[in-house]
């Protein structure tokens, strides 16, 4: 499998207003290859979201390196980072973050607004096909507010996968769902991602969700600790 992301001794520190430094992440090392399903578990405030932001090129490390397809992300301009993020990274958020006032189809087609050529011009057909894959063929014209939580998250998953990303980053993807729906959505996310050959990185505080991953890590005090390797 091809290595997509490599984090080497990554730290992320923020400078607080009282002039002190808050070390959110320290010495993080991680390698992610296509097809991986990595689960990262941690309590609130352990740095899970900060790690996700770094992986999604939404933020830059204070020290250490993050290589994306062998390229040091520190060398990327914000424009290049945005281009990679649009093309190769799909986000699934806890609160779904669907665009209000737009149908499920419009939401899934939204990332294709930033795609070049045919993907842009055929965005509605591609989005409809993606919704079909997540089992929402009958809800293409539904507004987010008329969808259940599980359906909204499936729309969000379809949106994350619509440009065929290499990495899907899921931030507490079942956090706003009940246990049963959460498990169902997670299975679907795992299946669809695996089918597309993308790596799935799930960040959660739910052990059950984390256990669905083939590799599991725990974030504790800003350090990423490996948990026992799990079999697929």
């Amino acid at each position, binding site marked *: 499998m091809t290595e997509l992301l490599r984090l080497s001794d990554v730290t992320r520190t923020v400078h607080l207003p009282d002039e002190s430094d808050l070390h959110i992440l320290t010495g993080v090392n991680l390698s992610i290859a296509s097809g991986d399903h990595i689960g990262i578990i941690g309590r609130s405030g352990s740095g899970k*979201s900060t790690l996700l*932001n770094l992986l*999604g090129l*939404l*933020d830059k490390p204070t020290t250490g390196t993050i290589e994306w397809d062998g390229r040091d992300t520190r060398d990327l301009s*914000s*424009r290049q980072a*945005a*281009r*990679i*993020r*649009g*093309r190769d*990274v799909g*986000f699934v*958020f806890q609160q779904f*973050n669907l*665009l*209000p*006032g*737009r149908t499920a189809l*419009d939401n899934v087609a*939204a*990332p294709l*607004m*930033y795609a*070049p*050529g045919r993907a*842009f*011009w055929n965005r509605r057909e591609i989005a409809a096909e993606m919704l079909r894959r997540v089992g929402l063929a009958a809800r293409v014209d539904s507004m987010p507010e008329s969808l259940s939580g599980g359906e909204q998250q499936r729309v969000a998953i379809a949106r994350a996968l619509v440009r065929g990303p290499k990495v899907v980053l899921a931030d507490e993807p079942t956090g706003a769902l009940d246990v049963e729906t959460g498990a169902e959505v997670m299975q679907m996310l795992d299946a669809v991602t695996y089918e597309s050959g993308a790596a799935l990185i799930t960040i959660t505080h739910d052990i059950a969700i984390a256990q669905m991953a083939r590799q599991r890590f725990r974030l504790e005090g800003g350090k990423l600790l490996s948990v026992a390797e799990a079999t697929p």
Partner: protein
Amino acid sequence: MTGFAAAVVEAWQELRIHKLRVLLSLIGVGVAVCSLTAAVAVGTIAQQGLVEQYEKESGRPAMYSMFAYNGETGTPPPRSVTNDVFDKTMKQFKISFHSMVGDASVTSKLGGKERQISVRIVEPPYADMFRLVPVQGRWLTAKDADNYSPAIVVDARFLKARGLGPGSLPATVKLQGDREVTATIVGQLPKDIYTGSPTVYMLPATYDRWFGTSQPLGDASYQMWVPVTGSKALSAAVRQQLRSQLPSLEVELQRIDYKAHGGGGQFREFKKVVGGIGLLILGLGALSLLNIALVTIKQRVREIGIRRSFGATSGRIFFSVMMESIVATLVAGVVGVIAAVGIVNSSFVHKHLFDNVTDVPGFPASAAVTGVLVSLAVGALAGLVPALVAVRVRIIDAIRF
């Protein structure tokens, strides 16, 4: 190309989805653009009204007045001498708009009392030269010289004093000439604001025949209306010709229309005032748009963050917000311009504002173009600040907003 199309589609989607907000915010812009465009258009048409007033007073550009006099005594020569020379010269230079102009007075019993009446003795082309358009009846023609009753055209003041109103022409009136004569009023002009007394217009032949024996017309000038371009050279040639034809007399020839001495500056001032009022209205509209746009951007921070997570560059976000503003204000601007055209062309406005304008120009294209361009500029300016705010949104904070 795809990027531009996508930005336009995105902007359009935003407008479609937030149509109520957009509609509310753009009402101000539409009204402002409508006001500006209407002000520019009304200004242009009102300027035409002013021009016409000036032209009625001093003639249409380029208008020249000529008169001859004896250099030693200062007295004018007999009209029979100058008339021939003048007519021949006009024919020679193929100048078709020319007229003798003389002033006299007669008396008439109007409204039960004897009144002094101003008489303007002119030839048929005079009406075109001074924009005189009868509001009822007709203007004088060369054939009127043969009438058995002197044909006259009167102003509104005269007609009112005579006790006549609209639709009353032709009518007759007694004028005291060499003897009392019944004149026929063939036409009526609007009220002349430049003369205080009732005025009648008649042909030189009419005057000579019915009034000239007892009060011969001593002083007369000749006027000609020629194209502005080349008027200097033409007038110089005419002067030279007249002098050569009247060697014993002094011949004066001067331009008399309002543009003779670089006039027209008052129109620039007028336009400035009208434009200034329009811009003030527009500024208020733009301010309200900017206000709403800024508040909206604050509400859309999360959405912007989500789009950034899709790969939208800061440039694309900037362009998208700008486009949204420009597309919206352009639509509002076009609607505003259409409304302005409707208002300015309405019969109500024509009746109350342009009643004194003879040649009401069509809705000025420059006003429509100004309206559309200004709406574009307002859109760009009002979109700039929110676009800069949108670009500065931190993605991580925005998603969690």
